[in-house]
């Protein structure tokens, strides 16, 4: 990688993180808005991690919250039971999630499971973990006893955790941009477009799909602790099928493989969802889901290429305008 590439990979991530740091000041440290921002940033990180397997490699993975739950619950329980710092627990969570992904992905890719069958298999993984965790955790919600400080990564107010998650987001954005500009990215996209043709130009399809899956799962395993802390609780329901589908929706609506598209989709959908729930949740419970679903259908009809096609068209228009201005 040459220096110019390093800048194009890191600069957008830094910009996003810097703009992000101003938000608590802009909302006057209102804890509701800071928590909303935190949850949006976590969702954006999860969706961008999904972009590696779903967007670049084109595998419709519906197991995101299997990895988030596993890594997150591991780190949380290590902290509450054994007083292990999440700084270590999060990396352990990442490792365990990666190991699970490898165990699932190796046979799936070995036997050429793809398309809808891959989606179904990964969806089943969440269900299995959901059911299995009832046996281990019991049908309870676990509240984390209040501990405070950087050792536990938990604080009286949300700002510090928010700043920390911005760092994670910046990392995930740079990783995405790095992949899209490197050999791995070209190979993953080729696999997404046509596996047989990809193999014929010498791409080890199985190896690269597995690499994408393990990378994605380890990021999610790492983020898991942040997710659980931002929800204040965990249970067997952390292994959530609907949430996993939601992540895939964000990735698709944003535009497969588009970093800016997925990022903006994550923020917009999270905020729209929150407001619909706030305004309509009390009037007619469930109406916000109906509206939310309709919105997705409208986006699907009007912009099948996802939000990224919209931003691409906009930048093209602006470029043409500027050229006309100068000529």
């Amino acid at each position, binding site marked *: 990688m*040459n220096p110019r590439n390093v800048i194009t990979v890191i600069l957008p991530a830094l910009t996003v993180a810097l703009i992000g740091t101003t938000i608590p000041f802009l909302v006057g440290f209102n804890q509701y808005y800071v928590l909303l921002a935190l949850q949006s940033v976590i969702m954006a990180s999860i969706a961008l991690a999904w972009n590696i397997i779903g967007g670049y490699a084109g595998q419709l993975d519906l197991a995101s919250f299997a990895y988030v739950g596993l890594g997150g619950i591991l780190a949380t329980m290590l902290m509450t039971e054994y007083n292990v710092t999440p700084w270590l627990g999060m990396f352990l969570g990442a490792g365990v999630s990666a190991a699970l992904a490898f165990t699932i992905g190796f046979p799936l890719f070995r036997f050429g499971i793809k398309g809808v069958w891959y989606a179904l298999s990964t969806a089943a993984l969440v269900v299995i973990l959901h059911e299995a965790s009832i046996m281990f955790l019991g049908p309870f919600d676990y509240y984390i006893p209040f501990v405070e400080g950087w050792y536990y990564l938990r604080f009286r107010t949300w700002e510090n955790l928010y700043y920390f998650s911005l760092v994670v987001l910046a990392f995930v954005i740079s990783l995405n941009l790095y992949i899209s*500009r*490197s*050999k791995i990215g*070209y*190979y993953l*996209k*080729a696999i*997404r*477009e*046509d596996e*047989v*043709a*990809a*193999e*014929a*130009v*010498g*791409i*080890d*399809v199985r190896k690269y799909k597995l690499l994408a899956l393990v990378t994605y799962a380890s990021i999610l395993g790492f983020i898991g602790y942040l997710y659980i802390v931002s929800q204040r609780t965990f249970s067997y329901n952390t292994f959530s099928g609907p949430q996993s589908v939601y992540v895939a929706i964000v990735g698709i609506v944003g535009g*497969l*493989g588009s970093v800016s598209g997925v990022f903006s989709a994550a923020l917009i959908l999270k905020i729209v969802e929150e407001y619909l729930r706030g305004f309509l949740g009390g009037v007619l419970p469930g109406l916000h889901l109906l509206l939310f679903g309709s919105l997705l259908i409208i986006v699907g009809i009007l912009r099948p290429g996802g939000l990224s096609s919209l931003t691409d068209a906009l930048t093209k228009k602006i470029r043409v305008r500027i050229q006309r201005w100068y000529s």
Partner: protein
Amino acid sequence: MSNAVVLEVSGLSKRFGGIVALNNVSLKITKREIVGIIGPNGAGKTTLVNCVTGIYRPDSGKVFFLGEDITGKPPHLIALKGVARTWQKIRPFYNMSVIEAVTAGALLRTKDVLKAREEATEVLEFVGFPKSKFEMLGRNITLIEHKLVDLARAIATKPKLLFIDEVVAGLRPHEVDVIADVVRRVNREMGITLGVIEHVMRFVMSISDRIVVLHEGRLLTQGTPAEVARDPLVVEAYLGTKPV
């Protein structure tokens, strides 16, 4: 021309259920040769290429590439050894730009994306792909352009042996001439040994050094284009027996 054998196929057979797609086929391709592989529909031409490039695993028989047994190896390893191919039914990368698709091919021999992009540009220029369309998405280009990209993508992997599977099918006569010229230059200027599967006789007869005829999975005959065209067995295979 040296007579080094690039590809040797011996006793290759492949069945699909009750259908025998390849029946004990043996042939050799020597260095820098252009070998035309012809035969009526269902003769086993594409199956032969699929068995050589690892898409199918043959039921029996061996495939040797540069003296090395590559029978049943996975496609990506065979590509790495230096066998490339194009596709009868185009397999385009619709959501990647033309240059990206060819770069993906060039990345087989290097890790450096910029270098691979330069190589991809050279290959695309070599096959005569219009430069103004390098950044276009695969979904927005025409059939002949797809065929050129497909060819460029295969050449970008720097093969020693390249199979071209019905590259001119569905093209107009003047486009056929364009492709014929490209194929000849791939052979002469790049020194790539070629196996050309084709139905369009005018095309395959004009570019091939040698023609191999398959019929119902068997090797019917082989020889120079002129010999093959006169061979009564070949005429019979294509047209049926003589009218009474």
